[in-house]
Protein backbone atom coordinates (compact mmCIF):
# COMPACT_ATOMS: atom_id res chain seq x y z
CA UNK A 1 0.00 0.00 0.00
CA UNK A 2 1.45 3.36 -0.98
CA UNK A 3 1.91 6.11 1.59
CA UNK A 4 0.57 9.60 0.89
CA UNK A 5 1.87 12.52 2.97
CA UNK A 6 -0.32 15.51 2.11
CA UNK A 7 -0.30 18.63 4.26
CA UNK A 8 -0.84 22.37 4.46
CA UNK A 9 1.55 23.66 7.12
CA UNK A 10 2.80 26.90 8.62
CA UNK A 11 6.45 25.90 8.26
CA UNK A 12 7.99 23.26 5.96
CA UNK A 13 10.26 20.80 7.75
CA UNK A 14 12.77 19.62 5.14
CA UNK A 15 14.69 17.37 7.55
CA UNK A 16 12.23 14.47 7.73
CA UNK A 17 11.22 14.12 4.08
CA UNK A 18 13.47 11.09 3.56
CA UNK A 19 11.74 9.21 6.38
CA UNK A 20 8.40 9.86 4.65
CA UNK A 21 9.63 8.63 1.24
CA UNK A 22 11.90 5.77 2.25
CA UNK A 23 10.47 2.35 1.31
CA UNK A 24 11.92 -1.16 1.08
CA UNK A 25 10.89 -1.41 -2.59
CA UNK A 26 12.22 2.03 -3.58
CA UNK A 27 15.62 2.47 -5.22
CA UNK A 28 14.98 6.10 -6.19
CA UNK A 29 13.59 9.10 -4.36
CA UNK A 30 13.25 12.53 -5.97
CA UNK A 31 12.38 15.66 -3.99
CA UNK A 32 11.66 19.22 -5.15
CA UNK A 33 11.73 22.18 -2.78
CA UNK A 34 10.45 25.59 -3.85
CA UNK A 35 11.83 28.55 -1.92
CA UNK A 36 11.53 32.34 -1.86
CA UNK A 37 14.13 33.96 -4.13
CA UNK A 38 15.48 37.44 -3.60
CA UNK A 39 14.80 38.79 -7.09
CA UNK A 40 11.69 38.72 -9.22
CA UNK A 41 11.83 40.52 -12.57
CA UNK A 42 14.58 42.79 -11.24
CA UNK A 43 12.42 44.20 -8.45
CA UNK A 44 13.23 43.43 -4.85
CA UNK A 45 10.70 41.17 -3.13
CA UNK A 46 10.58 41.95 0.59
CA UNK A 47 8.36 38.99 1.48
CA UNK A 48 5.75 36.61 0.14
CA UNK A 49 2.43 35.72 1.66
CA UNK A 50 0.53 32.54 0.85
CA UNK A 51 -3.11 31.81 1.51
CA UNK A 52 -5.22 28.78 0.66
CA UNK A 53 -8.71 27.35 0.51
CA UNK A 54 -7.60 24.51 2.73
CA UNK A 55 -10.35 21.89 2.30
CA UNK A 56 -10.17 22.16 -1.48
CA UNK A 57 -6.36 22.39 -1.58
CA UNK A 58 -6.00 19.14 0.38
CA UNK A 59 -8.56 17.46 -1.90
CA UNK A 60 -6.70 18.55 -5.06
CA UNK A 61 -3.34 17.55 -3.57
CA UNK A 62 -4.73 14.08 -2.84
CA UNK A 63 -6.03 13.78 -6.40
CA UNK A 64 -2.64 14.78 -7.83
CA UNK A 65 -0.81 12.33 -5.55
CA UNK A 66 -3.15 9.50 -6.56
CA UNK A 67 -2.75 10.30 -10.26
CA UNK A 68 1.04 10.13 -9.85
CA UNK A 69 0.95 6.88 -7.84
CA UNK A 70 -1.14 5.28 -10.56
CA UNK A 71 0.90 6.58 -13.50
CA UNK A 72 4.39 5.85 -12.11
CA UNK A 73 3.67 3.03 -9.63
CA UNK A 74 5.01 5.02 -6.68
CA UNK A 75 5.59 3.60 -3.21
CA UNK A 76 5.28 6.92 -1.41
CA UNK A 77 4.43 10.57 -2.14
CA UNK A 78 4.93 13.84 -0.25
CA UNK A 79 3.09 17.08 -1.04
CA UNK A 80 3.36 19.84 1.56
CA UNK A 81 2.71 23.54 1.05
CA UNK A 82 3.26 26.33 3.54
CA UNK A 83 0.91 29.26 4.15
CA UNK A 84 1.45 32.64 5.79
CA UNK A 85 4.34 35.09 5.42
CA UNK A 86 7.60 33.67 4.03
CA UNK A 87 10.98 35.35 3.86
CA UNK A 88 13.86 34.93 1.42
CA UNK A 89 15.35 31.40 1.42
CA UNK A 90 12.39 29.94 3.33
CA UNK A 91 10.92 26.80 1.73
CA UNK A 92 7.29 27.20 0.64
CA UNK A 93 6.59 23.85 -0.97
CA UNK A 94 8.09 20.37 -0.88
CA UNK A 95 7.03 17.47 -3.11
CA UNK A 96 8.61 14.06 -3.46
CA UNK A 97 8.14 10.67 -5.08
CA UNK A 98 9.58 7.27 -4.25
CA UNK A 99 9.79 4.47 -6.85
CA UNK A 100 11.67 1.28 -7.72
CA UNK A 101 13.87 3.01 -10.34
CA UNK A 102 15.04 6.57 -10.88
CA UNK A 103 13.34 7.70 -14.13
CA UNK A 104 9.90 7.23 -12.55
CA UNK A 105 10.61 9.26 -9.42
CA UNK A 106 12.05 12.16 -11.46
CA UNK A 107 9.09 12.28 -13.85
CA UNK A 108 6.58 11.92 -10.99
CA UNK A 109 8.23 14.63 -8.90
CA UNK A 110 8.12 17.04 -11.85
CA UNK A 111 4.44 16.18 -12.40
CA UNK A 112 3.63 16.80 -8.73
CA UNK A 113 5.06 20.34 -8.67
CA UNK A 114 3.86 21.32 -12.16
CA UNK A 115 0.33 20.12 -11.47
CA UNK A 116 0.23 21.63 -7.99
CA UNK A 117 1.06 25.00 -9.55
CA UNK A 118 -1.73 24.60 -12.09
CA UNK A 119 -4.56 23.32 -9.93
CA UNK A 120 -4.16 23.64 -6.18
CA UNK A 121 -6.03 26.67 -4.74
CA UNK A 122 -3.13 28.50 -3.14
CA UNK A 123 -2.43 32.16 -3.80
CA UNK A 124 0.81 34.05 -3.51
CA UNK A 125 1.07 37.77 -2.87
CA UNK A 126 4.43 39.41 -3.54
CA UNK A 127 5.28 42.30 -1.26
CA UNK A 128 7.63 44.82 -2.85
CA UNK A 129 8.82 48.00 -1.16
CA UNK A 130 5.96 50.12 -2.51
CA UNK A 131 3.26 47.69 -3.63
CA UNK A 132 1.63 44.29 -3.23
CA UNK A 133 0.78 42.02 -6.18
CA UNK A 134 -1.30 38.81 -6.37
CA UNK A 135 0.85 36.65 -8.64
CA UNK A 136 -0.72 35.55 -11.97
CA UNK A 137 -4.00 37.33 -11.26
CA UNK A 138 -3.80 39.63 -14.28
CA UNK A 139 -2.75 38.94 -17.87
Amino acid at each position, binding site marked *: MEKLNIEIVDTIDTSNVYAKLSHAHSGGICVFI*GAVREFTANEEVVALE*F*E*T*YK*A*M*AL*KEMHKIAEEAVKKWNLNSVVIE*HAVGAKKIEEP*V*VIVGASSAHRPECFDACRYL*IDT*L*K*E*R*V*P*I*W*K*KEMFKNKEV*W*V*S*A*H*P
Partner: protein
Amino acid sequence: MNVLFFGIARDIVGASELTISDLIKNPTVNDLKEYLIAKYSDFSKLTSFAVAVNSEYAKDNVPLERNDEIAIIPPVSGG
Protein backbone atom coordinates in the same frame (compact mmCIF):
# COMPACT_ATOMS: atom_id res chain seq x y z
CA MET B 1 -26.54 31.62 -1.27
CA ASN B 2 -23.21 31.90 0.53
CA VAL B 3 -20.08 32.37 -1.57
CA LEU B 4 -16.45 32.28 -0.36
CA PHE B 5 -13.82 34.58 -1.89
CA PHE B 6 -10.05 34.04 -1.87
CA GLY B 7 -6.97 36.00 -2.92
CA ILE B 8 -7.63 38.86 -5.29
CA ALA B 9 -11.32 37.87 -5.50
CA ARG B 10 -11.63 38.73 -1.81
CA ASP B 11 -9.97 42.10 -2.43
CA ILE B 12 -12.38 42.82 -5.31
CA VAL B 13 -15.57 42.21 -3.32
CA GLY B 14 -14.09 43.45 -0.04
CA ALA B 15 -15.19 40.36 1.92
CA SER B 16 -14.16 36.75 2.38
CA GLU B 17 -17.80 35.61 2.32
CA LEU B 18 -20.95 37.11 0.81
CA THR B 19 -24.59 36.06 1.02
CA ILE B 20 -26.02 36.62 -2.45
CA SER B 21 -29.81 36.81 -2.64
CA ASP B 22 -30.45 38.48 -6.00
CA LEU B 23 -29.26 35.68 -8.32
CA ILE B 24 -31.74 34.21 -10.83
CA LYS B 25 -33.62 31.07 -9.82
CA ASN B 26 -31.89 27.68 -10.31
CA PRO B 27 -28.56 29.33 -11.11
CA THR B 28 -25.59 27.56 -12.72
CA VAL B 29 -21.88 28.23 -12.23
CA ASN B 30 -22.00 30.39 -15.36
CA ASP B 31 -24.87 32.48 -13.98
CA LEU B 32 -22.84 33.20 -10.84
CA LYS B 33 -19.79 34.21 -12.91
CA GLU B 34 -21.87 36.59 -15.04
CA TYR B 35 -23.50 38.05 -11.92
CA LEU B 36 -20.09 38.77 -10.37
CA ILE B 37 -18.65 40.32 -13.53
CA ALA B 38 -21.73 42.55 -13.89
CA LYS B 39 -21.62 43.68 -10.27
CA TYR B 40 -17.80 43.94 -9.80
CA SER B 41 -16.17 44.94 -13.08
CA ASP B 42 -12.67 44.08 -11.79
CA PHE B 43 -13.51 40.37 -12.25
CA SER B 44 -13.35 40.95 -16.01
CA LYS B 45 -9.75 42.15 -15.66
CA LEU B 46 -8.54 38.85 -14.16
CA THR B 47 -6.66 36.30 -16.29
CA SER B 48 -9.56 33.98 -15.47
CA PHE B 49 -11.48 32.71 -12.46
CA ALA B 50 -13.08 29.42 -11.56
CA VAL B 51 -15.90 28.35 -9.28
CA ALA B 52 -15.58 25.48 -6.83
CA VAL B 53 -18.66 23.62 -5.62
CA ASN B 54 -18.16 21.56 -2.47
CA SER B 55 -14.40 22.05 -2.80
CA GLU B 56 -14.08 20.74 -6.35
CA TYR B 57 -13.70 22.65 -9.61
CA ALA B 58 -17.13 22.95 -11.27
CA LYS B 59 -17.85 23.46 -14.97
CA ASP B 60 -20.01 26.35 -16.20
CA ASN B 61 -23.15 24.22 -16.64
CA VAL B 62 -23.19 22.82 -13.08
CA PRO B 63 -26.33 23.87 -11.13
CA LEU B 64 -25.78 25.52 -7.75
CA GLU B 65 -27.79 24.17 -4.82
CA ARG B 66 -28.70 26.16 -1.73
CA ASN B 67 -26.55 24.08 0.64
CA ASP B 68 -23.50 23.78 -1.59
CA GLU B 69 -20.21 25.27 -0.39
CA ILE B 70 -19.45 27.67 -3.23
CA ALA B 71 -16.09 29.42 -3.66
CA ILE B 72 -14.55 31.82 -6.18
CA ILE B 73 -11.08 30.66 -7.25
CA PRO B 74 -8.95 33.35 -8.93
CA PRO B 75 -5.77 32.24 -10.82
CA VAL B 76 -3.77 30.02 -8.47
CA SER B 77 -0.10 30.73 -7.78
CA GLY B 78 1.18 28.20 -5.29
CA GLY B 79 4.65 26.71 -5.35
